[in-house]
């Protein structure tokens, strides 16, 4: 158990910070030299999607210009090259999350589809009337709605773990919600609205005691933290390529091989079969059983390049730098009169959600945009969480390792400007 009421604010992080190299790193991202309304772009909407390094752009260009082809079926040279690059992408993802085998990596469109895959396949096979699914108050709609649909179809029951005012899971309450009927716990690793890093190790440990399976929504975790699915011992882990500096439209579902083997297919079609007759179809082996149709080949190859790029810098060095940015941003923003930070968990990723007294988040967003600062304003697809905090919307600045303290100063000045305008 994490001691309650602990005052520990900083965690021990490995490796030196990348602070001194950030100017060099920024040059890898061509978009960062764009001007918006005549001002240098300050991109603080990384939780919505991250920017792409030149290495990813070049890799996509090379694939599309020199070896674009379909995979797994052609006998010609280009198809062999494309197949090889696609399967190399799978191995890169395997190493990135430290999965035991590459067949445990299923390519999907994004985190949303990964969760839907589990709801359809695992859910329909193993969750029935009276069974229970546990989620938390801080889930993204993509980790709420698929389970509501499943519950409607099967008669299963959805349980929701409450949170405290800082935006932390109430672990004692979670423990009470777990019963022998709990089939699945599906929680977010890092909250997209609050930045909270959830105690997923403990979540998994407690679920195991009741024999429940655990899915982690890692969309906001993989760009910031080193994720090791074997060390965590989660059953499923989902994330999106575009939030980790890769292309949109490509995502990953990691699942333990023995689970994926036992689960029925998600979609039927080409590539997911061994043989088809009108009497009987024999399904393909993992991972192809879950990859019906021509996949997003360019997406996988681009994601592979993104992972190489991030690994080249090293998440162990990214994390402490982002933590410095978070602490600085928290300090600077807290000093603005009328500004309230939503989400003050002790364990946080580099993301700050806030409300400004008397000013709607969308007006803040519009004023900031005119200063070149891109943030997100709204409910961030977490409407129940907004209700929990009694706000309709928040403004959210989400930072990546290519952001700087100077950019945080620009943000703070722009917020003060909005305050003056509407105050």
């Amino acid at each position, binding site marked *: 158990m994490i001691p309650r009421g602990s005052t520990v604010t900083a965690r021990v992080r490995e490796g030196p910070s990348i602070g001194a190299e950030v100017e060099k790193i920024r040059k890898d991202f061509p978009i960062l030299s764009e001007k918006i309304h*005549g001002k240098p772009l300050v991109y603080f909407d990384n939780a919505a999607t991250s920017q792409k390094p030149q290495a990813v752009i070049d890799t996509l260009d090379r694939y599309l210009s020199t070896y674009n082809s379909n995979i797994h079926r052609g006998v010609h040279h280009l198809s062999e090259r494309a197949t090889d690059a696609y399967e190399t992408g799978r191995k890169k993802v395997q190493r990135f999350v430290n999965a035991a085998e590459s067949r445990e990596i299923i390519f999907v469109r994004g985190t949303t589809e990964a969760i839907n895959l589990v709801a359809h396949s695992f859910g329909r096979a193993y969750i029935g009337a009276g069974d229970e699914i546990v989620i938390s108050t801080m889930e993204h709609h993509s980790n709420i709605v698929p389970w509501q649909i499943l519950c409607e179809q099967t008669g299963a029951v959805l349980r929701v773990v409450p949170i405290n005012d800082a935006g932390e899971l109430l672990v004692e309450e979670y423990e009470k919600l777990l019963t022998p009927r709990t089939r699945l716990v599906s929680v977010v690793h890092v909250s997209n609205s609050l930045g909270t890093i959830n105690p997923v190790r403990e979540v998994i440990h407690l679920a195991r005691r009741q024999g429940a399976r655990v899915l982690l929504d890692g969309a906001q975790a993989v760009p910031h933290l080193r994720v090791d699915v074997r060390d965590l011992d989660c059953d499923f882990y989902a994330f999106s390529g575009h939030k980790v500096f890769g292309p949109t439209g490509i995502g990953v579902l990691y699942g333990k091989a023995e689970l994926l083997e036992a689960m029925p297919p998600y979609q039927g079609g080409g590539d997911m079969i061994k043989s088809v007759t009108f009497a009987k179809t024999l399904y393909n082996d993992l991972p192809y059983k879950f990859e019906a149709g021509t996949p997003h080949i360019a997406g996988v190859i681009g994601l592979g390049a993104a992972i190489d790029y991030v690994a080249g810098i090293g998440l162990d060095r990214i994390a402490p730098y982002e933590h410095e940015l978070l602490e600085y941003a928290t300090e600077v923003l807290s000093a603005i009169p009328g500004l309230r930070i939503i989400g003050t968990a002790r364990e946080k990723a580099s993301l700050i959600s806030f409300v400004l007294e008397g000013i*709607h988040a969308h007006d803040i967003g*519009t004023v900031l945009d005119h200063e070149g600062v891109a943030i997100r304003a709204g409910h961030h697809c977490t409407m129940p969480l907004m209700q929990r905090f009694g706000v*309709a919307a928040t403004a959210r600045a989400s930072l990546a390792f290519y952001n700087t303290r100077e950019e945080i100063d620009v943000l703070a000045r722009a917020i003060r400007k909005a305050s003056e*305008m509407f105050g």
Partner: protein
Amino acid sequence: MSDLRELYQQLILDHSKKPRNFVKLTGANRTAEGHNPLCGDHITLYLQVEDGVVQQIGFQGSGCAISKASASMMTDSVKGKTTAEADIIFERFHDLVAGEKEKAGDPGALGKLVVFAGVREFPVRIKCAILAWHTLRAALEGKAEPISTE
């Protein structure tokens, strides 16, 4: 480049800070709800319509400066008008902020509402300006379903 002051005109800021007719009408015989799911803007509109004339109008709700000011100025502009007149103002306002540029040619007829002309340069904010007006139309048509701009 579109200037921020074009969007946030002084009159808009004024109405957003001190919305007019910001009351729940107890004698209302027409009500409608409007909701902007993306922003969380929410408005409930109350009308007292007698002999085809909007005698009283009030609204409640929360939202951004544009949506609040638009609701406030909408209530001011249709109070005392016939429902047919209100409908014409709706059409003109719609053309002003969201219509084709050539059609938005008669701003004089809109009076103070022309301060919303700058909204058309901010495509993501058009729905904020138009929410109250769609809610008005729903109330006048007696629609039971909440209005959504999505």
